[in-house]
């Protein structure tokens, strides 16, 4: 069919309208209004927002709480990132072999991903229980007195990390599997002829070739880490326990418990900027270690 210029745009717009409308109503307008709200003081129930310029941002950056939250989040990332990379590569490698019934194993590893976080976290709360939990009981058999886990300021985050690894390994493992399956087996054959062992193949072939996948997993899991929320809410019952304070948890607390919507939205904009900067930095640094030639 032949369209006149104006007609064509109209047709395109008509087809795009439903999704554009959705985008506008459920994303762009809320984003715009939250940006405005972050510059106001608003208690939601007591009248319209009062414009206070950048005060919320200044107060957040000046508060001891913000830096504590950032520290807790970084503590999580430092523990979580290496572990999730190792475990997902390991799971990806295991699932990449040709066993009988491999589909069953793939399903098993994926089950935690499908479990709701609330159910999973409730189970983990008991697994990590210092008195009645499985982990401390096992540690007890080999003569180690297990830590207080979720009730101890140093061990609370590692406890959350363990649960998160359990939950996320299946998902990232599957992504790693996709990366691994994209490797041409002839590389390994060539390497074997040249006398490369297991480690040699892993370091010289596998890892470089799946580096784009590793990069993807790293970016996504750092973003997820900044937005840590359900596991914290369910596993750490005491909201006043400072070692369990993280970004989204604080935002929720300020918005819906303390009636400080302006402060909460400013907090979420700071979170957005942080994630944005960290991701930008990762994209800049990827040139040094990610290779896209196959």
């Amino acid at each position: 069919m032949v369209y006149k210029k104006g007609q064509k745009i109209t047709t395109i717009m008509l087809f795009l309208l439903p999704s554009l409308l959705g985008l506008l109503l459920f994303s762009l307008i809320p984003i715009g209004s939250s940006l405005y709200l972050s510059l106001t003081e608003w208690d939601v129930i007591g009248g319209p927002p009062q414009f206070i310029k950048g005060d919320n941002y200044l107060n957040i950056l000046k508060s001891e709480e913000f830096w504590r939250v950032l520290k807790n989040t970084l503590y999580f990332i430092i523990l979580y990132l290496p572990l999730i990379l190792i475990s997902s590569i390991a799971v990806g490698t295991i699932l990449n072999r040709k066993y009988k019934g491999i589909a069953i194993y793939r399903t098993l590893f994926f089950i935690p991903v499908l479990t709701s976080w609330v159910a999973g976290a409730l189970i983990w709360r008991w697994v990590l229980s210092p008195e009645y939990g499985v982990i401390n009981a096992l540690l007890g058999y080999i003569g180690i007195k297990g830590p207080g886990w979720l009730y101890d300021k140093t061990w609370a985050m590692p406890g959350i990390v363990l649960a998160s690894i359990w939950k996320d390994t299946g998902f990232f493992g599957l992504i790693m599997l996709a990366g691994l399956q994209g490797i041409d087996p002839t590389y390994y054959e060539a390497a074997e002829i040249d006398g490369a062992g297991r480690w040699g193949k892993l370091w010289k072939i596998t890892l470089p070739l799946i580096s784009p996948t590793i990069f993807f997993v790293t970016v996504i899991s750092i973003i997820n880490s900044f937005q840590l929320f359900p596991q914290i809410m369910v596993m750490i019952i005491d909201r006043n326990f400072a070692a369990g304070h993280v970004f989204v948890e604080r935002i929720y607390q300020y918005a819906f418990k303390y009636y400080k919507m302006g402060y909460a939205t400013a907090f979420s904009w700071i979170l957005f900027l942080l994630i944005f900067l960290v991701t930008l930095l990762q994209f800049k640094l990827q040139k040094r270690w990610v290779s896209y030639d196959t």
Partner: protein
Amino acid sequence: MKKRMLIVFGLVLLFVVNLWMVAETAGKTVTINFANFSAGGDNTKYLEEMRKIFEKKYPNIKVKVETIGYNDYFTVMQTRIAGGNAPDAFELNYENFATYAKKGTLLPLDDLIIKNKFDTSVINKNALAAFTANGRQYGLPFSFSNVILIYNKDLFDKAGLAYPTNDWNWDDLLEAAKKIRALGDKIFGLYQPIQFHEFYKVVKQNNGSLFNEDMTKFTVNSPQNIETLQYMVDRVQKYNVMPTEAQLAGMGDWDLFKSGRLGMIVTGSWAFPDFIRDCDFQWDIAVEPGIVRKATHFFANGLVLNKETKKAEAAFEWIKFLSSSREVANIRVDAGWELPAVTYPDVIERYKKQALPANREAVFASLDYLVTPPVIEQFAEMSDIMGKYLALARDGEMTPEEALNEAQKELEQKIKL
């Protein structure tokens, strides 16, 4: 023939007039919306019972009840109010009542009380007074419970101890707790949460207060309060008659009691139905011990009206009925659904006659020492700041003095009194 026509005509006329009248009264029926969280779970059927009695009594008022789970309730209310969609009448817990009232979201009830000649003396005066702010009545008490000392008789017998009486003080409490703790490695003497609500009350037992007389300043780190917190923390850290968080290990304090491993617990009378169902040992209650004086806590959820409601009269009838009617009080007593906040002697007799615990008198004896929580706009935030430092002291990360000094500093900075 003519006569018959007349009769038929008369009948038709009567029928039409009747129809018109029915239509007229039906047109006058008011439907009000009511939101609550208390009736969640098992209690839904009792609220439904109450609604049916109410609609029979007031045929012109229909109530649309909406029960929302406690965890989502306040988020939902917040959004509804912001969107101009709030129900005519709703329930608030104490913390949120203070915030809502101070922010001017609620309709003052004083005029309605006078206009309806509502005799408020049928409501427990402390419970009623709790729902005032800036000298006006903003709510009526819905559910009501107070805090008492509940003890495991079997453990007391095993330790060869006399049961707690209403005359006990802090020292008696600690001594008994130590003897029970000595019964076994996994048996604890006492549990009393170290958080804002408890601390607010326990400092009063020691003649302290978290605020100055006219509520314009925090006095969190006064010498009496430091002494009080030291006493509470010693029970965990020094004598370990109360479990640490790690020893509790995620087990709820009620569960610890119900498992028969806890001698005494300071908790609310709302625990009764649970304990009656689950405890396979003998237990009873006493008034909570004090030191310089006694002070006991109560918790009440309030019924309030939305400031924007156009059906204030009808909505007021409903909350008045829920708060003070004998019918509702009796349903509550029979169901064991907390304590009705009314003063009818026959209802109180009925409550005392319920089987367990034997010493139900203590519930009423405790009412003589009630302290009312402060009405502060930033209640939830204040209670969390306080809670954070109390937890640091409880876990031995700060001395009570350091914790309260820090709390005082942060509260002064963040909370407007």
